[in-house]
């Protein structure tokens, strides 16, 4: 099966798309002016014919960002994964290579799996010590208005960051599937969106510190010592009870000397995650020519 290809390299001092190949059912759109021409970045939009991923679709793509270049991969709208026919699973696979002093920004809209959909994605990133990567990987519970909340069959997402070809810096596989002891919605309670943001490398150092500070401030306000009457007491009609936070986030560092930061988010609304991403990534406008998630 042929794989899609994207190569962004520095040509005469500017990030340039030197190779672009896509295979049905997906397509790359590369607008000439995604943002300010002062910024040196190539923006690439991935779209799927039919507006979504159909049962059994399989897509693979290789992305190379050469030394000193900057590439932004994004989508036009959320990736919809339609219901699974038979037991077919839809798959997307991306192999990315980021060079020295290069920056790859992966800022898609969220994946939305419809009822009974089966979906799996694998994203492998090969980096060197001076590479920078911003990765956003997120999923919503489905078509809430139709009452579809975590009604899909199976969702699996693997993100793997490999340093210099052999050292695993970061490996996360999140697998959501109904189990015998509770469905997905029980595991996620009232939260309708889960997101993971990874920030790695020298170009993202400032954002790393800012985001850690902001999340700490935000969450410290949300977390409260439970009242004395919690749990053991048999009375359940407590008139004063704080609701669950509608937005939960936590930051962790990873890699040697905390080279990377990963932020995990669980939210009751998609909008609040978009707002969070807009706010936290706004400072990237200078580097990319446009702010992510505007």
């Amino acid at each position: 099966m042929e794989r899609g290809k994207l190569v962004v390299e520095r040509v005469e001092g500017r990030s340039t798309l030197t190779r672009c190949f896509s295979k049905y059912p997906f397509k790359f759109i590369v607008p000439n002016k995604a943002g300010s021409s002062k910024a040196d970045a190539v923006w690439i939009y991935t779209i799927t014919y039919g507006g979504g991923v159909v049962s059994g679709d399989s897509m693979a793509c290789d992305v190379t960002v050469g030394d000193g270049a900057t590439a932004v991969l994004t989508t036009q709208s959320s990736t919809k994964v339609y219901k699974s026919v038979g037991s077919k699973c839809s798959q997307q696979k991306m192999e990315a290579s980021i060079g020295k002093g290069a920056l790859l920004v992966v800022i898609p809209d969220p994946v939305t799996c419809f009822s009974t959909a089966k979906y799996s994605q694998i994203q492998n990133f090969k980096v060197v010590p001076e590479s920078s990567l911003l990765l956003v990987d997120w999923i919503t519970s489905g078509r809430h208005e139709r009452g579809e909340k975590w009604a899909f069959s199976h969702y699996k997402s693997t993100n793997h960051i490999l340093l210099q070809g052999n050292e695993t810096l970061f490996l996360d596989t999140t697998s959501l599937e109904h189990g015998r002891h509770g469905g997905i919605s029980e595991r996620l309670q009232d939260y309708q969106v889960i997101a993971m943001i990874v920030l790695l490398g020298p170009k993202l150092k400032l954002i790393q510190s800012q985001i850690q500070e902001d999340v700490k401030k935000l969450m410290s306000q949300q977390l409260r010592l439970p009242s004395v009457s919690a749990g053991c007491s048999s009375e359940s009609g407590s008139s004063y009870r704080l609701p669950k936070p509608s937005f939960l986030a936590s930051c962790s560092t990873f890699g040697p000397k905390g080279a990377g930061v990963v932020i995990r988010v669980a939210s009751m609304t998609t909008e609040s995650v978009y707002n969070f991403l807009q706010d936290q990534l706004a400072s990237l406008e200078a580097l990319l020519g446009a702010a992510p998630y505007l």
Partner: protein
Amino acid sequence: MEFVGEANDNKDKSSSSGSLRLWSQWQLLDSILPTGGFAHSFGLEAAMQARLVISPEDLRTYVIHVLENTGSLLLPFVYAAAMSPDTQTWHKLDRLLNAMLTNEVGRKASIAQGSALMRVAASVFSEIPSLKMMRSEALSSGAVSFHHAPIFGLVCGLLGFEAETTQKAYMFVTMRDVISAATRLNLVGPLGAAVLQHQVAPIAEDLSTKWMNRAVEEACQTCPLLDTVQGCHSYLFSRLFCS
């Protein structure tokens, strides 16, 4: 005559080592073993302060989710270490788990518990000198983080426990520690905790069967909400537990 005597001797030796193994098993699973498990709540304290766990019913659900995530993410490491309890495998598993425990709070807890377990096991199970050797080698090289799951598998493997028993034991100690944390957080009383533990046991058995004997390449997390909440532990103003 001597032949029969020898055969009987061998049978005695193997049945006595089998019985001794049982005593080692009980000791390893006893909460009195000084491995510092009491310092960790597996994210329960943060979950309570975030009002995700309020009632004993919420606690039951929480314990099941912790067990599910332990099964999916950590059992493969316990299994792999138990099947090949050697230095090379241990180091490889430790490095990989370090990259997969992306939640910093959980990662540090794993390192604290693993280091304590290795230290205790090296002193207690002196009939296995390789434990002491592996430990001092790892300490001087500094290349090992001492994560809990691989060390648990390693110790059990070297003690001759079966892989199935080892993995179920890992689920057991996890369940034991979360429920114990719940009593100290006043979410449930000691008797209620014991009742809950017994009620959850068949589910723990089911989950152990579901997730056991898998390759580490298949390790995944199944409760992202748990991961997110546990990561909030360091934001708690007032806390009883380390994690």
